[in-house]
């Protein structure tokens, strides 16, 4: 009878352990110190550029520092999904001077897509649908939170253009993940 009791107890402990192993874990974090760079997506992977960029392969890389990170697992070797404590609520891109038939100060977010690349997949996601992807499951690279917004519908003519990016979060007045407006310097599109 004693053996049976121990057997049942061992089975119970084993099932709890197995259940715990299957639970997904999340590393929660917040973001600050946003910055932006131009991206040239002409090659196999997007590269940041300082000078002119090809208009048909132009993009914007947004970058922030993850702060107040809390590990979702006590096991240091376990990889957890990143999770923003205060998720994105809006990402908007605005043309400051206008181009083609678009007037100045117009929201042109629908001309940009989020480049979502994993080891097994590459997708372009519209900014409307990108918010949850960015707020959860977004990989941290070199201890930096960064993503590329590709201009899939560029201006018809080469020239100098100015854009701004508005990032909004569900912050509820927190000091980090603040709503951020980035006014980008003039970029020359070739």
């Amino acid at each position, binding site marked *: 009878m004693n053996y049976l009791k121990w057997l049942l107890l061992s089975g119970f402990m084993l099932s709890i352990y197995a259940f715990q192993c299957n639970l997904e874990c999340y590393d929660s974090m917040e973001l600050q110190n946003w910055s932006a760079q131009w991206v040239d*997506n*002409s*090659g*196999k992977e997007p590269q940041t550029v300082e000078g002119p960029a*090809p208009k*048909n*392969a132009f*993009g914007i890389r947004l970058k922030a520092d993850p702060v107040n990170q809390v590990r979702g697992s006590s096991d240091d070797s376990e990889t957890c999904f990143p999770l923003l404590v205060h998720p994105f609520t809006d990402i908007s891109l605005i043309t400051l001077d206008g181009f083609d038939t678009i007037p100045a100060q117009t929201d042109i977010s629908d001309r940009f*897509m989020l480049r979502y690349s994993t080891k*097994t*997949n*590459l*997708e*372009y996601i519209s900014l409307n649908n990108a918010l949850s992807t960015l707020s959860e499951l977004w990989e941290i690279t070199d201890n930096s939170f960064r993503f590329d917004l*590709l*201009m*899939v519908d560029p201006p018809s003519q080469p020239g100098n253009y100015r854009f701004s990016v508005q990032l909004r979060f569900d912050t509820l007045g927190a000091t980090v993940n603040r709503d951020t407006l980035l006014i980008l310097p003039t970029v020359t599109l070739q």
Partner: protein
Amino acid sequence: MTTRLYFILSLGLLCIQAGRAQKAPKQWTSGLFGSLSAHYGAFQQPLRNVVSPYSVAPGSGLGFQAEGGIAFKNHLGMKLLLGAVSTSNMEAGIEKELEAQNPGYYADFVPFSDFQERRSTQLAFGFTYAFPFKNGWFEPEIMFGGTQVFADQAHTRLKKAGSHDIMVMQYRPVNTPPLSPTLFLGARVNRYLTPWFGIFANVRGMAIWYQMDYWASQEITFLPQPEDIFTVKKSALGVQAGAGIFVQMGKW
């Protein structure tokens, strides 16, 4: 592997003992034969340079064969062969081939399969003729059969240089026969060690005709394009050299 070697050795020793017990002359006699052998083979790799996702076909390496046959008094014989040959996985060449087919694109091949290196089965039936000599015989052969080739679905993507455009392709094998037609031409030299048992060495050339149909779908920057079915038709030559043991199971 070890079990197979033990089996072959035990069988050999048994036959030697059986042969020693008898004083029958060691010369070719019509009857039933069975044999086991190991061989080394080398095959051309025509699928390496075409888009044939995850195809796995015979490659260079070790293989094993079992044969059974009957020889008639007029020296003609019939033989059935069951073998396994080493294979080579063709996925490595696909990126280069896709880039060659689509100038101005960077290929990015995404593994979508669990295929591993494995052995390919060969099955064949054919005819032999025996030229007896002292303590053995020489036996040319011609056989027809099939060689197993594997194919699996795959998912590739290509990035267009100078733009954001991406071409995503998916491939899935359809109507691919399990065995590719194969012609075997060879010869072997057999030597009796006892009246019922002996050793042999053989050389065999092969011609394999591969034919695989793939269903292909394509998206260019996530806009679906018309679907397509294409056929990969290639032939390959191969050669095997090996050695083994034979048992004469019946004489008349």
